[in-house]
């Protein structure tokens, strides 16, 4: 029994040695494998949610993302919708947004990019406030706070 324990312990230690030696040369491929695990995707609260609608004009693109209400066990009542403007955006953004895709505009948003001023005019009463409005590497992004139910 003692001998078996010793052999098992030393084998385990050598296995550890091999693991460390192969860790760095294979790091990229192990990382790719880990990134494919089912839970290895960013929560929509961080990624901003999937793109629900893309509006393309000759100057720029507006991505309206799916509303995000994700919680730990169940959805929350308070969430947000993220809007991303990309491309050649004018200094003054002014758009009317239908975030729930029901054919009715839910809010107007105007952004004065030069002065970093954002004004939200809610039409739908579920629309609350501007959570984030910021310059990004691709243009401008806004998160508007919304309620799931009134």
């Amino acid at each position, binding site marked *: 029994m003692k001998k078996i324990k010793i052999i098992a312990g030393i084998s385990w230690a050598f*296995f550890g040695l091999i693991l460390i030696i192969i860790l760095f040369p294979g790091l990229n491929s192990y990382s790719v494998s880990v990134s494919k695990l089912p839970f290895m995707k960013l929560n929509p609260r961080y990624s901003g949610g999937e793109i629900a609608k893309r509006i393309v004009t000759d100057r720029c693109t507006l991505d309206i993302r799916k509303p995000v209400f994700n919680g730990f066990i169940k959805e929350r009542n308070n969430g947000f919708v993220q809007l991303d403007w990309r491309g050649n955006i004018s200094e003054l953004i002014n758009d009317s947004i239908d975030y729930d895709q029901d054919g009715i505009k839910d809010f107007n948003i105007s952004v004065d990019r030069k002065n970093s001023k954002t004004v939200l005019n809610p039409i739908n009463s579920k629309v609350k406030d501007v959570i984030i409005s910021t310059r990004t590497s691709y243009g401008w992004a806004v998160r508007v706070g919304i309620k799931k139910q009134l």
Partner: protein
Amino acid sequence: MVNDLKIAGTRKSLGKSLLYTLPMFLITFLFITGGRPNFSDPSSAIAVLTAFLLVNVLYFLMHFTGKTDRYRAVLFIIFALSLSYTLIHNMLEVRNSMSFSQADILECKIPFCHLVIPMMILPAVFTKSIIFPGSILNGFANISTMIVLWLVATLVLGRGFCSWGCFYGGWDDGFSRFGKKPLIKRIDGLWKWMPFAVLMMVMLTAALSMMPTYCSWICPFKAVTEFEQVTSVESATKAGIFLSLFGGLVIALPIMTKKRTQCSFLCPLGAINTLSNKITPFMIKIDKNACNECFKCVETCPLYALTRDDIKEGKVSMFCSKCGKCVDACSKNAIHYGIKGVPAGTLKNFSRNLFLFVSFLFMAIFSAGSIIASFQGLLKLIF
């Protein structure tokens, strides 16, 4: 006389030490220089060569002098300093500030650090997603790569990760070495269970708020890496907490107690590493036949991992990070590196050699990137 006896047990002749360093020399040459040192950019070549020589000289000295912790700590502290230097330098160069912006969060550009791992667990199980604004696979310190590195290290080294792999641990390890005698001698060892409480708290709060709460509200190392821009009362409060915890747990208390108080009393990942100590092949063992119960090891342990009762019973607790400080302090060579299943007092040198190779190789390669970057930065500053 007794010290000579002890050192004679682990130190090697010049030739033997060089021979033991050879495999490290070859492997680190491949990984640090890429096998083909590039001499076209002198500052980068000097930085690469210095980092390469540094790790190999330290490893050689571990064998030649028989001392472990002394040389481990040099690389460990340089790792912590250089990582902070590299991060801050990048932040200042790219953003002109040490804080990240809302845009960085929105675009998921925040570098991932292993301390987030405990907070990811529950959301990953229940929502099948990661609650962190970083990149899953691309760029510097992406989530997948950091998980692989930590997972392998904690499996092989257990809590040894906290003394051989963590790029923050060098901060309080360094400050705990200031001064000769501790100003505060007694802190109840029960506090070492505190990281488990912090772990539970941050796991639950992170799941409920879907936010990495430790990083957002507690982590002392935000003070030396990057934190949210101070734009509101909330962000100012957070910055205040980061700075006071850094000042208290990473600077002041380690100096006063000569212990690694942040690692001992706060770090939630340390708690997970403590648990993985149960499965790792390497451990510290006590040779009861050689021990004269002087308890120097108990006094010297920076992580409250040893008590007098542990020594009397001949076992080291799961809180041990395998730093080797107690091994260096023992004049009888009674406390030593060992392998699971191998009886204490046997295969002492074999176990030490194997453990040193594994743990030092991990630290040398993991730390090389940031050490090279900071050496390069220093060279640019000087010339």
